[in-house]
């Protein structure tokens, strides 16, 4: 039933369009509401995509990487590092382990201490990156073994601080998705109200159309088409402005951390383009329901 009526809707009927008098007020309201909702939806969508991306990235790294820190007096550092690497290579579930080079460690400290840091004079611990395999290694077992053989080694598998972040990112994504659903619902509610107002304002017109033999579907389509097209054009404008807004956000970068990662990247720019047709669909369903209900009440 929906497909042929959608087809009618798109092809339209210039004569049918004229039978309902143009109504400036509800037309502007519908345009504004769908535009505003689409604009907000773009941001909710960008937020949900970005937080989803963050959650996935953090979860991956959480599962995949750990850091082994070796705090040892300068003369033992090299020996302990080698011992730790040897243990790691023997441990099942460790895919790869690599000691960070001096330059890399300087790089990590630069943001805090500047580029001219005399690193050799400081008791900086040696860092070893540990990448886990699938299935992963047993962190508790590894810790116990390291404790026995490399007293200065501390294994940090990032769980403690990454897990709450991943959870926060996931909660953020859920909130964004709920917002999108609520925006759609609010738009449906407002278009239902606008459609009801238009149907009530045109009660005389509807009565005349019934008297000259118009079927309900004909009358309903005249209203549905109007509201669907308004919602479509309003949402298209809202999405265009919203996408411009997202595009103007600073790009995701290493320096900016996760807050700048809120924009859209690559093919994800296609996502907002789904909003106008969805908005039109919401308007179509809302107006259909309102029109069919109201026409059913008439004689």
């Amino acid at each position, binding site marked *: 039933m929906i497909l042929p009526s959608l087809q009618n809707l798109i092809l339209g009927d210039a004569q049918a369009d004229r039978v309902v008098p143009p109504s400036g007020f509800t037309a502007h309201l519908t345009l504004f509401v769908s535009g505003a909702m689409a604009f907000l939806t773009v941001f909710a969508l960008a937020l949900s995509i970005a937080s989803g991306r963050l959650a996935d990235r953090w979860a991956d790294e959480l599962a995949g990487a750990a850091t082994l820190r070796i705090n040892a007096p300068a003369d033992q550092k090299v020996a302990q590092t080698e011992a730790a690497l040897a243990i790691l290579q023997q441990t099942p579930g460790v895919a790869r382990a690599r000691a960070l080079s001096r330059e890399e460690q300087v790089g990590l400290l630069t943001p805090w201490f500047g580029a001219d840091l005399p690193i050799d004079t400081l008791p900086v611990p040696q860092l070893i990156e540990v990448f886990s395999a699938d299935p992963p290694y047993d962190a508790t077992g590894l810790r116990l073994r390291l404790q026995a053989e490399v007293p200065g080694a501390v294994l940090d598998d990032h769980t403690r601080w990454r897990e709450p972040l991943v959870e926060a990112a996931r909660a953020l994504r859920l909130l964004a998705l709920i917002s999108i659903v609520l925006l759609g619902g609010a738009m449906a509610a407002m278009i239902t109200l606008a459609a009801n107002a238009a149907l009530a304002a045109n009660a005389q017109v509807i009565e005349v159309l019934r008297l000259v*033999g118009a079927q309900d579907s004909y009358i309903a389509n005249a209203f549905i088409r109007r509201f669907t097209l308004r919602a479509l054009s309003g949402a298209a404008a809202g999405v265009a402005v919203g996408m411009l807004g997202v595009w103007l956000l600073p790009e995701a970068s290493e320096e900016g951390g996760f807050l700048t990662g809120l924009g859209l990247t690559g093919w994800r720019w296609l996502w907002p383009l789904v909003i106008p047709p969805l908005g039109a669909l919401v308007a179509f369903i809302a107006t259909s329901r309102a029109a069919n209900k109201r026409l059913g009440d008439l004689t």
Partner: protein
Amino acid sequence: MIELDNVAYNYGGGELLNNVSVQLSPGAFYFLTGPSGAGKTTLLKMCYGALAPTAGQVRAFNMDVRGLDRDQMAMLRRRVGVVHQDCRFLDHLSLLENIALPLTVSGRDLAQEEDNLRELLNWVGLAERAHALPPELSGGERQRAALARAVILSPDVIIADEPTGNVDWEMSQRLLRLLVELNNMGKTIMVATHDLPLIRAAKNQVQARVLRISNRQLQLAGVDL
């Protein structure tokens, strides 16, 4: 065509019509008369399905009107041309578009019906007013436009409720002539009116039957009006 069988109608404050039976035969010309408030409009509305009788049965084209769904009712309205008391136009459309409205809503191609439309406008004498809006028309023009709209789909039955209510004698004669012409073309005509001179005038032009509502009943009126 249209058959009322023991029909009663009750608005809630007592019966308006009771035990009304009438059969509209094809090609006949009827007048429906009676005092104001006697139920002329109610009876007509039951004939074209705008009101359902509270008792009895209304049959139109061999279908029980009560059993029709909304779409079938729309189809019935296309087979019965109705001239309403207050005409009922869409004020934002031109006269021409209003007359063509039954064509529009039944999905006909207006371009193909252009000759028909022009002919019809000439017939009711409104060719020059084709692009006027309904509020700009006089009472007589509105009635003629309503008649044109009622016949555009070439219905078998034409029902007119007080078509001469708001027009002068000359205009009512003109409307009557149009209705008689339609009757001569084989249409069944039912005109509700309390204008007795009009009925007398009609008797010279057409074999009209006069139905009178009195005391909630429908009677075939005598010749002695």
